[in-house]
C-alpha cells in the first residue's frame, strides 16, 4: 500500500484523538516533571534549581503526616473494600430470590459522587448519630467521629467501603459466575465442603477478578479526593489529609507550586510502583492455577 493512503487513514482515524490525548495528558505530564527542577512560581521560571523542590518537599513535616496517613488509608481500604465486596458477591450469588434487589441496594452508593456522599455522611456523623446516641444514651457516638484523627480515619474507611464495595462486587460476581458448573459439580460429588470449594476451586479460578479489583482499589485509594474533601476536609488540623488533597492545598491554597508539583511526581511514582508490584504478583497467582 502506498504512503499517501497510510497517511490519509491515520489522519481520518487516529490523528485527532491522539492529538487531544497528547495535549491534555502527555504535555502537562512532561512539563510538570520538567518544572519540578526549576524555581517555577505558577507563571514562569527564571532558573534551574536542581532537586531543591524535592528536598524541600521531604523536609515538610505535613507531607510526612500525609504520606503515612495515605499509606495507612490505601492498605486498610484495599483490604476492607475487597473483603466486603467478595462477601457481598458470595451472598448475592447464593441463589436467593431477593438477590437482584440486594445487588441493586449494594450497588447504588456507587452511582453517587464522592462530594454528595461526603456531605451525607458528614450529616450522619456530626448530627444524626450524635442525636441518636443522646436519645438512647449510647456512648459510642456521643462525640462526632470527625473531630478526632483516629475516628475520622475510620469514618473515611467506612464511607469508602460503603461507596466502592458495590462496584467491586460486580467484578467478583462476574468472576464467580464464569466458573464452569461441571467443575463445581465434580467438587460436590467428591464431597468437598463449601469452604474448601471456595478456597481451592472458586478463588483460584477467578484470580483475574482479584487482579482487577485489587488494582482498582489500590489506584482509587491513592487518588481519593472527593470523599476526603467533603467528609473531613482534612481536619482536625490537617491530620486527615490524603495525598491528593495535600497536593491541591499546597499548590492552590498556599501557592507552593514547586513543592506541590514535586509531591505530585512523588505520588505518581508511588502509584506506578505499587500498581506494577501488585499486578505482577497477582498475575503470577493467576498462572499458578
Amino acid at each position, binding site marked *: 500500500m502506498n504512503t499517501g493512503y497510510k497517511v490519509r487513514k491515520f489522519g481520518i482515524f487516529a490523528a485527532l484523538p491522539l492529538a487531544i490525548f497528547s495535549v491534555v495528558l502527555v504535555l502537562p505530564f512532561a*512539563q510538570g516533571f520538567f518544572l519540578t527542577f526549576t524555581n517555577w512560581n505558577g507563571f514562569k521560571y527564571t532558573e534551574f534549581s536542581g532537586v531543591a523542590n524535592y528536598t524541600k518537599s521531604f523536609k515538610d513535616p505535613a507531607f510526612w503526616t500525609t504520606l503515612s496517613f495515605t499509606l495507612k488509608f490505601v492498605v486498610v481500604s484495599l483490604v476492607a473494600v475487597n473483603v466486603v465486596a467478595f462477601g457481598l458477591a458470595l451472598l448475592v450469588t447464593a441463589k436467593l430470590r431477593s438477590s437482584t434487589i440486594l445487588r441493586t441496594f449494594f450497588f*447504588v452508593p456507587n452511582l453517587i459522587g464522592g*462530594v454528595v456522599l461526603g456531605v451525607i455522611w458528614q450529616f450522619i456523623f456530626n448530627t444524626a448519630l450524635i442525636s441518636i446516641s443522646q436519645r438512647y444514651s449510647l456512648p459510642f457516638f456521643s462525640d462526632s467521629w470527625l473531630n478526632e484523627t483516629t475516628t475520622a480515619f475510620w469514618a473515611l474507611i467506612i464511607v469508602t467501603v460503603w461507596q466502592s464495595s458495590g462496584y467491586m462486587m460486580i467484578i467478583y460476581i462476574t468472576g464467580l459466575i464464569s466458573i464452569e458448573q461441571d467443575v463445581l459439580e465434580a467438587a460436590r460429588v467428591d464431597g468437598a465442603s463449601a469452604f474448601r470449594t471456595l478456597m481451592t476451586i472458586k478463588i483460584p479460578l477467578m484470580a483475574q477478578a482479584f487482579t482487577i479489583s485489587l488494582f482498582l482499589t489500590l489506584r482509587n485509594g491513592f487518588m481519593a479526593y472527593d470523599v476526603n474533601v467533603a467528609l473531613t476536609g482534612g481536619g482536625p488540623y490537617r491530620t486527615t489529609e490524603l495525598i491528593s488533597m495535600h497536593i491541591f492545598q499546597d499548590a492552590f491554597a498556599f501557592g507552593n507550586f514547586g513543592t506541590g508539583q514535586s509531591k505530585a511526581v512523588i505520588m505518581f511514582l508511588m502509584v506506578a510502583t505499587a500498581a506494577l508490584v501488585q499486578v505482577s504478583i497477582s498475575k503470577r497467582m493467576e498462572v499458578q492455577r
Partner: protein
Amino acid sequence: MKSQGRTFRKIIFAVGSVLSFAYVMPFVLVFINAFKPKYDILRNPLSWPKTLDWTNFQQAMEKMNFFRSLTNSIIITVISVSALIVFSSMLAFYLARTKSKLSKVTFLILVASMIVPFQALMIPFMSIFAQFVSLNNRAALVFFYIGFGVALSTFLYHGFISKIPMDLDEAAAMDGANDLTIFWKIMFPMLRPVTATVAIVNALWIWNDFLLPRLVLTPETQTLPLSTYLFYGQYSTEYGQAMAGLLLAVLPIIVFYLILQRQFISGISTGAVK
C-alpha cells in the same frame, strides 16, 4: 441434609437483609429529613416527617440553581461521552488493524497512561490551559474529558476489535467499500456491547466528577456535584435544605440507573474482564 440447607439459606437471607439495610440507611436518612423543618431534624433525625413540607426543596433548588446545574451536567456528559465513543472506537480500529511498530507503541503508551493520576499533572495543566478555559470553560472541560478518557475507552474497544476476524473487513474492501464505510457500516454496529460499556463507565465518571470541574467551571456553568458542595459549609444552619438538595442531586442518576440497570451491570462486568 435438606433442612440444613434451609437454615443456611435463612441465615444468608438474614445477613443479606441486615447488610442491605445498612447500605440503604443513609439514603433513607436523607429522604426523611428532606421534608422536615430544622427543629424536627435536630430533635430526632430518625423520625418520619409529620407533614410533607416542600419548602426545603424550593429553597434548595433556588440555592443550587438546580435546573441550570442539571442542564450543564447533561450537556457536558452527553457531548463528552458521544465524542469519546466516536474518537476511541475509530482510534482503536486503526490501532488494532494497523500492524506496525508505531501503532503498537502508541497503544502501549495509551495503556501506560492509565496509571497517571490526574493530580500528577493538575498543576501545570491549569497554567497551560488558563486561556482556553477563560475563553469557553464548558468546551474546555469537554476537551479535557476526551483527553483523559480516550485511553481507557480505546483500550476497551481494542480488546473487542482484535477478536473480530480481519476477513470481514477484507471482504468488504474487496467489494469496494472504503475504510470509513467499513468502519461505520460493518464494524461499529458489531461493537454495541463495548459501546454500552464505554458509555456507562465514562458517563458515571463525568457525571460525578468534582475536581476537574471545580478547577475549570464558573458559577454560571457549574454542574450538579459542584452545586451540592454549597451545602458543605452550611451544615450548622440548614440541614433540611441540604438534605433536599442532596436528594435532588442524586435523583437523576438513580432514575437513570434503575431504567438501564441491566446495561449498567453488564457494562461494568465486560469493562472489568478486559
